[in-house]
């Protein structure tokens, strides 16, 4: 049988073939091929992003008998995922060489994870969703434990695996309940049944809740966040940087498309859950971060908080809200990757350090890097005119429009608490005198990422329409198409 409409999955096929070719190159070239495979992976991911844009259909198109959909929304997410994954590999090249973990499997696993994420966001059936999610998760479990001789890294990988498997199980169980009570796993079929239905059956609601639990785990929303700080701290830093970016975007995009698409008819039901998740994430993310001394743990709690803010947009249950989620996640990824590029440059006599106090006096020893970190921190705190402010503006605007004033007030008050620990980093860098300086110069790759991300964050206010317009178009094809 010839499958129709295969061209809409061109980017996925390209990435899949690329992953296999890269694996072959690695196997035949042997241990020394890490750098070559890394560079080729970066090129493949960027090329795949170009293919995605090029092959993006004007209207929603489905392939693989309705299991797979391609539209403006999936294009937006895929471009973000692919570019974030590419940057993730760039961040790791120098680090892996220094720390003697130059395994060619590493970039290949990231490419496979990216493929899983692409399938995830393009899924239009609970089964294809699950397949994508598992491909992504399994790759990530291995990557987290890539440093086999480190207890912390192995612990991180194991924790992530056990909890992740539990979450996947819940999601699968939820999917089976949904199937049992509706008779279909296809998104279109579910949407047709649920819109205008008088009272949804309890079984279906339980199924929905379990699916949401599984996805909430992937975005690390409170109370399903327990793994995040440990995995962030234990995994090698470039892996943490990668975890904080692309998978978060993919999982959040998936959460939006699942809730807005097939379960759009149950918006009253799920928005309550999302509100609770959002408040819990914002509050816990900000308050728990105050006590952290390790900058990677701090970033973990900070990412939990940011997910809370993004969920505020989702909680509004409107197209404006979904668009705000996309804008928020895109800006969040840029800030996070930039901040991790700074964290990766934190070395003292060639060894990585990761305490906040290690940044002491950075503004004197490395003014440019300190200035970039300053931009990221103030932006994450949501201070205008930096990009993070507009991200918050959009999600809270959606919440206020939906009448969720209390959510907006809670969110903005927690953002003040959050500002405390972000400006504490600024304080360490700018107000304190340097004692034991960090190594002066980050690699050219890290410096470039810091600078590009910093400028994007700083100058976002000049061209906000570029991102906002793209997100609007993307969401239109989700809700209107």
């Amino acid at each position: 049988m010839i499958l129709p409409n295969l061209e809409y999955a061109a980017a996925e096929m390209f990435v899949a073939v690329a992953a296999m070719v890269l694996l072959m190159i690695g196997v035949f070239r042997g241990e020394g091929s890490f750098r070559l495979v890394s560079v080729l992976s970066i090129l493949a991911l960027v090329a795949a992003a170009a293919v995605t844009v090029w092959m993006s259909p004007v209207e929603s198109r489905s392939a693989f008998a309705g299991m797979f959909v391609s539209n403006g929304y999936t294009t937006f997410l895929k471009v973000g995922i692919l570019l974030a994954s590419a940057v993730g590999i760039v961040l790791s090249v120098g680090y892996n060489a220094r720390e003697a973990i130059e395994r060619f499997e590493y970039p290949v696993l990231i490419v496979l994870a990216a493929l899983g994420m692409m399938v995830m966001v393009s899924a239009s059936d609970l089964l294809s969703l699950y397949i994508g999610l598992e491909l992504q998760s399994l790759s990530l479990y291995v990557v987290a434990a890539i440093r086999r001789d480190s207890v912390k890294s192995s612990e991180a990988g194991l924790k992530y695996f056990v909890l992740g498997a539990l979450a996947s199980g819940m999601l699968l169980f939820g999917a089976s309940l949904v199937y049992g009570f509706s008779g279909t796993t296809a998104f279109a079929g579910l949407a047709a049944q649920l819109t205008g239905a008088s009272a949804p059956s309890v079984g279906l609601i339980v199924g929905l809740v379990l699916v949401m639990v599984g996805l909430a785990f992937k975005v690390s929303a409170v109370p399903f966040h327990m793994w995040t700080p440990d995995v962030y701290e234990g995994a090698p830093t470039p892996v943490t940087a990668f975890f904080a970016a692309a998978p978060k975007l993919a999982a959040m995009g998936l959460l939006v498309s699942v809730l807005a698409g097939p379960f759009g008819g149950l918006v009253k039901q799920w928005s309550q859950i999302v509100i609770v998740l959002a408040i819990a994430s914002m509050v816990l993310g900000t308050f728990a971060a105050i006590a952290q001394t390790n900058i990677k743990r701090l970033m973990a709690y900070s990412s939990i908080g940011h997910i809370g803010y993004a969920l505020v947009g989702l909680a509004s249950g409107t197209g404006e809200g979904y668009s705000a989620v996309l804008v928020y996640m895109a800006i969040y990824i840029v800030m996070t990757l930039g901040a991790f590029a700074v964290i990766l440059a934190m070395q003292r006599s060639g060894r990585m350090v990761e305490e906040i106090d290690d940044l002491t006096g950075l503004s004197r020893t490395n003014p440019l890097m300190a200035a970039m970190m300053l931009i990221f921190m103030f932006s994450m705190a949501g201070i205008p005119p930096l990009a993070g402010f507009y991200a918050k503006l959009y999600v809270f605007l959606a919440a206020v429009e939906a009448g969720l004033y209390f959510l907006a007030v809670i969110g903005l008050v927690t953002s003040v608490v959050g500002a405390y620990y972000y400006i504490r980093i600024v304080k360490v860098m700018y107000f304190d005198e340097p004692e034991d300086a960090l190594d002066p110069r980050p690699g050219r790759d890290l410096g470039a990422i810091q600078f590009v991300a910093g400028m994007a964050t700083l100058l976002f206010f000049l061209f906000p329409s570029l991102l906002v317009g793209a997100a609007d178009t993307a969401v239109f094809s989700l809700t209107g198409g």
Partner: protein
Amino acid sequence: METWPLLSIVTFAPLVGALLILVMVRGDREATDRNARWLALWASLATFLISLLIWINFETGTADFQFVEKVAWFSFPGGYTLSYHMGVDGISMMFVLLSTLLTPLCILCSWEIKSRVREFMAAFLVLETFMVGTFCALDLVTFYVFFEGVLLPMFLIIGVWGGDRRVYSAFKFFLYTLLGSVLMLVAVMAMYFLSKSAGQGTTDIVELLRFARETGFSPEAQKWLWLAFFASFAVKLPMWPVHTWLPDAHVEAPTAGSVILAGVLLKMGGYGFLRFSLPMFPDASVYFAPLVYTLSIVAIIYTSLVALAQEDMKKLIAYSSVAHMGFVTLGIFAATVQFSAGSLPDNLLGEQAVTGAMFQMLSHGIVSAALFLCVGVVYDRLHTRRIDRYGGLVHRMPRYAAVFMVFTLASVGLPGTSGFIGEFLVLFGVFQVNVWAAALAATGVILGAAYMLWLYRRIIFGELVKPDLMRMKDLHPREVAIFAPLVILVLWMGIWPEPFLDVFDASVKNLLTSFKAGACRVNEACFAAR
């Protein structure tokens, strides 16, 4: 001239200067510092000249916004495109001038800063951009961006170049003001959606003013919106009891930081009340007038007493600022008290009071800035701000003693100085609407005289006995250049205030008319009067 975007130029000229300093200034340490200083001075002077040009071309006698610029900026999801919208009326014109005047003086008084000169000068110019932008913005989101952006450079200025407890003060300043502002942000969003009932929602200040005059927010919504804006402006102004960040920030900030803080940043609160609270939420302003009056009178009397007890010069002046700002809020809300008292004479009173509040803000902007500069002069020489370390300075520094006296008397409100006009107009206006408030506020004037004159006596007069004061040198030319324009202004504003009053006269009248139109929509006193 018509086609030049003068307001954008005056707003962003300092930013260009800051970028030039960061990018261009290179070389060895000494050359870097020297070039950074001069470049910053020229940039700020150029900005000042442009703002003078705007003032010259400013048309008095109309309440319309002038030099308006409007460019589509970005859209909210759902299609509303908000604009980068700039313009000045009489109220904001004066504050723009105040900001551009004080910045070059601050740069001059920071000439001797030793560490990280380049960064300091750049931070100061960025600060100027945000300050001027705050007063020029005619869109709520644009306003918020500038208003909040001020925190960034100010946090660094206090934290990097401040005194011993600078970290604590910088954090307190940042978090206090941020907490106030985020509530305002919620209100801004709510206003966008609430104004939707009249067609397209808007964040444009001109449109919102028209909306408030013609339709108005519902009284219930007004109360919440008013409180949210109040949270922001009361912290900024600051009003008792949310003033506690101010003494800390003032004391620890470097001299230039204190000058800008007292001279301009505090005025943003008063400007906000005049621009937003009064005309956009008239009912709520009436409803909450007793609260504002109580807090203002407590501020005037309590902080004056606190000022009496201070051992630290900067702290004393900081507390006096809180007391003076109490007069400002009394004046701004005088018209609302009239409503809440339930009587409504034919002509709306409060014009003198609001005019007085405006004038008091300008006067305080210059006088308190100058007083901090005076403290800076002796601090540069002796590196202490403790009052009891000084005494008898008149013997060594006669010129300094004279300058300090002018500003002390202006702060006290002596006729012939700018301080008199503001305080007198406020008390005059307040007396008409509430005798008790005026009487209590007048005691604040007496207390003000007490602490300022006592401060002056302890520092300037008496025997010159302390050995380390023997070597004190009088004002040198750079310091004379800083003080000369301020002395002239204080006397000019005190003797012939017309040119300044003319600028905002029409705008204040218009403000009160639209306040009355809004407040009369639901207020029973109006119906009774008809």
